[in-house]
């Protein structure tokens, strides 16, 4: 199938002609471009190889998250047959740009550190294993932040990725350590979240963020309630 791929490179769109099978993932289309003896744009002008991130190539590591035809998703799980014949790819916009499609997502790690996403002692509680598992499957890809109307990369609001991490940690903690995490949820999550759930729609790990948020709220209510009693 013939088509084109337009790649946003430093705010300029570069368009390339491609010919790929329907089951070719976008990562492979990019790889094919970089394998050309001489890479030329569709208009014949020469181009440097494209920079993007890729690791597992099977949808579990979050490396290849980018905006494809306007929506954030994993490039290794976006197939030409579905997103073609004219594909537009651009970097996630809420992170500093490194080059082409590669961004610096270290702000996610920073927000997790700020919310103390770790256990205080070696005694993790085992409660709802299924939800803990699902929550820990977060790839830290950043797709949820891309669509979030309230996340800007600056300020106190850390978005769905932060709330989900808070949930997992709070679930495994008790007492004051748990209350502390719940207070981070209030400060860095709930206070800024308008519950539109756009994040849930795009999350490639299929994390039920609505459940995460409502359970955190319930826990927070209970913790405040019991402490005040």
């Amino acid at each position: 199938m013939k088509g084109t791929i337009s790649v946003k490179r430093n705010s300029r769109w570069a368009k390339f002609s491609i010919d790929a099978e329907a089951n070719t993932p976008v990562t492979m289309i990019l790889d094919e471009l970089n394998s050309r003896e001489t890479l030329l744009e569709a208009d014949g002008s020469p181009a440097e190889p494209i920079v993007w991130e890729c690791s597992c190539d099977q949808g579990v590591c979050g490396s290849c998250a980018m905006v494809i035809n306007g929506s954030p998703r994993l490039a290794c799980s976006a197939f030409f047959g579905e997103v073609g014949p004219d594909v537009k790819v651009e970097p996630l916009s809420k992170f500093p740009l490194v080059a082409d499609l590669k961004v610096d997502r270290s702000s996610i790690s920073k927000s997790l550190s700020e919310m103390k996403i770790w256990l205080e002692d070696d005694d993790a509680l085992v409660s709802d294993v299924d939800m803990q598992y699902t929550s820990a499957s977060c790839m830290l890809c950043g797709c949820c932040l891309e669509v979030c109307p309230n996340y800007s990369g600056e300020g106190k609001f850390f978005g769905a990725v932060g709330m989900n991490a808070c949930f997992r940690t709070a679930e495994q903690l008790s007492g004051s350590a748990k209350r502390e995490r719940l207070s981070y949820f209030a400060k860095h999550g709930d206070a800024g979240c308008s519950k539109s759930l756009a994040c849930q729609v795009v999350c490639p790990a299929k994390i039920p963020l609505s459940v995460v948020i409502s359970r955190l709220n319930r826990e927070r209510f209970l913790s405040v309630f019991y402490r005040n009693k």
Partner: protein
Amino acid sequence: MKHILVVGNGLAGMTAAIRAAELGCNVTVVSKSEPARSQSVMAGGGINAALNTKGENDSVLSHAEDTIKAGVYLADEKAVEEMTSSAPSLVEGLAKRGVVFDRDGDGNIDLRNFGGQKKKRTAYAKSGIGKQLVSGLSSELRRKEAEGRVVSRISLRFVSPVMHEGRCIGAVFQKDDGSFEAIKADAVIAASGGMGGIFDRHTGSALSDGSVTASLFVKGAEAANLEMIQYHPTTIETPAKNILVTEAARGEGGRLFTMRDGKRWYFMEEWYPEGKNLMPRDIVSRSIHKVCMDGFGLDGKYQVGLELETLPKDTVYKKLMEVSELSKKYLGIDAGKEPIPVVPAIHYFMGGLYVDRFHRTTLKGVYAAGECACQYHGANRLGGNSTLGAIYGGRVAAETAVKECESVSLDVFERAAEIEVSNIIDKLSLHREINREVNAVKKLKRLMTDTMSIIRFEEGLKAGLEELAGFSPRDVYAPKNSSADALHFENKLILARAVILSALERRESRGSHARSDYPDMSDEFRKTTVACCKNGEVSIRFDSIGREFA
């Protein structure tokens, strides 16, 4: 205060960093990307530990025996016993540190059966143990960072070690903008994963490309059992790569077949009436290879069928959800209605940097753990033992490194680093003037996968060597911001040569190494294959198993 530099932040690297920090050191963990991107997150099946909660009389000793037997007596038995003895407390410790495992009715960590082991001893987390382990360990690492013990640096690519008087005192990395940075260390722990970068169509991650192994090898760290490469029998071929279909598909009753005389021929069941479709990975892979080479590949291709459609629908769509989703997504095949075409593909590297049971390499100041190191698995690895080996090995490597490391002055380091960086820049300047070959890496990978195929033989291996000699180290084109890839390519060519030579010299068949010209196992080769590089020349020798390096 001692400073330990860890290269790689998969399971082995994170564990090493955490342990070194616990022992009071300052640690810098450097990697290409965040832990969540490492190959470790791809692990599906589980992690082995003889927790013995299933009333099966399991013990750490039988875990050791199974490991040694699966490795066809090439593994260091003492090292294996130490690992399996630590496994139960290690896995319980991981759970306490927040790693989520499936639980049985009594709330114990649940255990499943896994190939090559008669007892239930594989702790698991649905179909994604790796992700759970990485999530748990990265929280722990974050805590160490907050305590000021660990600094994590990402988007830095290891280029080469900084050496002084035969000892490694740090390493040079390349940044995203193409510039170089040298980091001083009292000891370096390599935790950089397998050698996927010199093979194509493997199941692993593009990040674990063998570049660190190749660089250290060329600088004098010896490598061991490089010929021992595990093929997983069931992967699906997608345009981009081969994706693993878990052993559980056969565990739940999936059958391998191909067509003969217009009928389904269940060759595994015919050839191995006892173990059938669940024979060890190497045997199943070789059987599929044989069927295909004899002209019986399904639809005339190099592939056989995995029959799941005769299983209960619940099994296909629920228990094996991951498999049915995979085949739907990548092949458009509904596993409840049609067979899935599968092929064997490279999955794990038992060989790597030569380490002793304390995880010392032969290069002073460098330690190695995880898939980049040759330890615990001998000629074949048991499913569930490599996550264990990476975590346990990372711990041991840190303990040894902390005990043995020596400081050099900043002055000495800066001088040595300056020389190393200018050497790198000199070498790279040669590259840029020369012919740009965009696809040199791809060609190398193809050649290596062909040459190191499931069945090897002298002429094939020699032809591979000859073709390899035709590659010019300067062939490769690397864009400016990752110019060090050009050096990695030079090193990988040498490592590739060592891999083929190791296979050539091991004139026997053992575990994952099968030679059609030497089909039998020979006691003479119950040894470690050691590859050594001096001035770019590779030589091979055989060491007795379990050597310790001073």
